[in-house]
């Protein structure tokens, strides 16, 4: 595999873009709800409850453009629900949120994708009865052939289709899925499906990629190369927001970390600041066990 050695905080071989991204976050205070110099996404007072459970109750959060931001927190913290709210898959009880300065209240889920904000799912959603390449091509936006009246007029979409296919093949090669190109997606392994879902999301040409546990079930060697791919996305100018439980991964990959617990943002900061934050450790393990995790990190 083309795995690279794990460095303590991933800073050994930082790209130029990464240095700029981290530099921009340098002056940001490590407090929940901290304002960012150039936020691509902002959520204010977003609250969602299911019956008695308040799943999400975020006073304020901003995601810095061009950075890799990790969203962490214990199981049931509300991370997935927060993703659903931001992308229009669920509606909050109250709150306002915007993407690129445009309010996303009452914007349907499919429009958020067209605006450049794409998400993946914690439980992978590959379209199993379609081939891998068809899965990929489905991801491209603005396809003329997706209008029913154009469907039977191949000359109106053939050229676009060829271009889309070329781009899909490129992405498949990048994510080492090219050998599965013509297989049913249902024949892929769990980890391969994660890769397929992520590369399919990239077919939409997003500005903001929201990945819900992209590494879950992926083998360590592949994790390393996925890691590289995610950094590659940032280096190409995309913003990445990802949910992850593996602290090494978070530390290695992210420019900024946001911690959720019981629906609220309890801490924010650089990976180093977060790993020494006792509130975070308490949230994960209960009050008295903080020390052992600190040593882990």
């Amino acid at each position, binding site marked *: 595999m083309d795995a690279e050695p794990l460095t303590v905080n991933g800073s050994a071989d930082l790209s130029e873009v990464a240095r700029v991204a981290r530099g921009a976050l340098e002056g940001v205070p490590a407090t929940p709800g901290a304002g960012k110099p150039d936020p691509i996404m902002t959520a204010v007072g977003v609250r969602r409850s299911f019956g008695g459970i308040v799943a999400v109750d975020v006073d304020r959060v901003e995601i810095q453009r061009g950075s890799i931001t990790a969203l962490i927190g214990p199981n049931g913290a509300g991370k997935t629900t927060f993703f659903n709210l931001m992308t229009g898959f669920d509606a909050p009880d109250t709150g306002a949120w915007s993407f690129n300065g445009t309010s996303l209240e009452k914007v349907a889920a499919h*429009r958020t994708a067209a605006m450049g904000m794409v998400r*993946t*799912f914690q439980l992978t959603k590959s379209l199993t*009865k379609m081939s891998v390449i068809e899965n990929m091509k489905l991801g491209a936006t603005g396809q003329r052939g997706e209008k*029913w009246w154009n*469907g*039977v007029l191949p000359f109106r979409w053939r050229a676009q289709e060829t271009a889309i296919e070329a781009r899909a093949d490129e992405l498949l090669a990048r994510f080492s899925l090219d050998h599965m190109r013509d297989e049913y997606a*249902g024949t892929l392994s769990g980890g391969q499906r994660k890769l397929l879902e992520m590369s399919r999301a990239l077919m939409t040409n997003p500005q903001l990629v929201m990945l819900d546990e992209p590494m879950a079930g992926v083998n360590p060697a592949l994790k390393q190369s996925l890691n590289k791919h995610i950094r590659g996305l940032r280096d190409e100018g995309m913003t990445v927001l990802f949910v992850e439980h593996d602290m090494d991964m978070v530390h290695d990959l992210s420019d900024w970390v946001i911690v959720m617990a019981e629906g609220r943002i309890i801490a924010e900061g650089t990976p180093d600041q977060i790993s020494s934050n006792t509130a975070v450790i308490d949230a994960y393990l209960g009050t008295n066990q903080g020390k052992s995790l600190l040593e882990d990190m």
Partner: protein
Amino acid sequence: MLAAFSDMNWQLIATATLTAVFGVDAMYFAIAAIGLNVQFGYAGLLNFGQAGFMACGAYAIGMTAHYWNISFWWGIPMAIGYATVFGLIMGIPTLRLRSDYLAIVTIALAELLRLIVRSVTFKKYFNGSDGINGFGKTFTEETPFNPSGKYSLWPFDQNANLFGRVMLLLIFSVASVMVGRMIADRLRGPREKLRVILPVVIFALVMLGAKQTEYGGLGFKSLIVGWLVVFVIGALIYMLMRSPWGRVIKGIREDEEAVRSLGKNIYSYKLQALILGGAIATFGGMMFSLSRGSVQPDNYSRDTTFFVLTALVLGGLAKVTGSIVGPMLYWGISQFISVFLFELTQAWGGRVEIFGVPLITSSSQIGAWVQGLLGLMLVLLMVFRPQGLFGNRKEMALDGR
């Protein structure tokens, strides 16, 4: 017992069966099944109201004579208009909900539509339970066929004209190649050879079968036109399902959320599929009415919906070939069982008894046996070949993962 079999009129059984395979019922079912396939097979929409859409077509064409007094050709745009309205009424409230809601609403609305068109209150528009007769005269009268003559689908029939011959040969050969290749691709063995041999064999069988058919001249024109409609619509859907539009539709069947996350307006696509499938079904209603020269409300009951669904499942979902061959086999088999049992009853002196158990004591019981045996056949199909005759086993196998 064996003597009885040799007494039976096998020639008649063969003719009746093959006539049904290519007959009007198979033709209009095939059109409706292509439509249902778009909705159910490809998009996964549980439409149990296909008879309602067929009625939209039948009544659109009937009303041109009964109410509007205009050329029956206006029936086509009107049918599409009715289907659109009907589809919107069905789809708008339900397509955002879970799929079961659509099923319930479609079954109810199709029944409601039938009750409205047969009601006394709206007799002025739809002529109540008498139905509408005597429309499309220009269509039926301007026919090259002799109304009292007998015709077959054999392309070299002495009665056939050049155009008919060419069309029949074309349809038979294209269909044989499509079906033959499809079967060849499913079989193990020397595929390349099978891809040549099977179409030839099927073509020969179809030609032999066509020679056995026998139709009255009165509805023969609508039969020919109807199969042409099947052919054209089938080809269009085949293309559409291979287009990016079809890709979105197939994606929706599997996982709406995934497709939505990629920026597609699921709700709109589902409405499009529902209405497109419905608009196709109206052609089934139109062709059936034209072949009879009459529209009867009770032809569009729930039974029709479920028979079309049965025929489609028999052929195999999400395959254009399946949606056409399914209805042909459905009607062929049911006619075969029916005529076979009739002949058997005749040959055995009016009763069928096995080990002293009287199974059939009068020919009026045959209808029930046909239904029962068809049902049994469907159960066996579901057990041994759940994907239908032409469905894709590989795709079925991916379900559980």
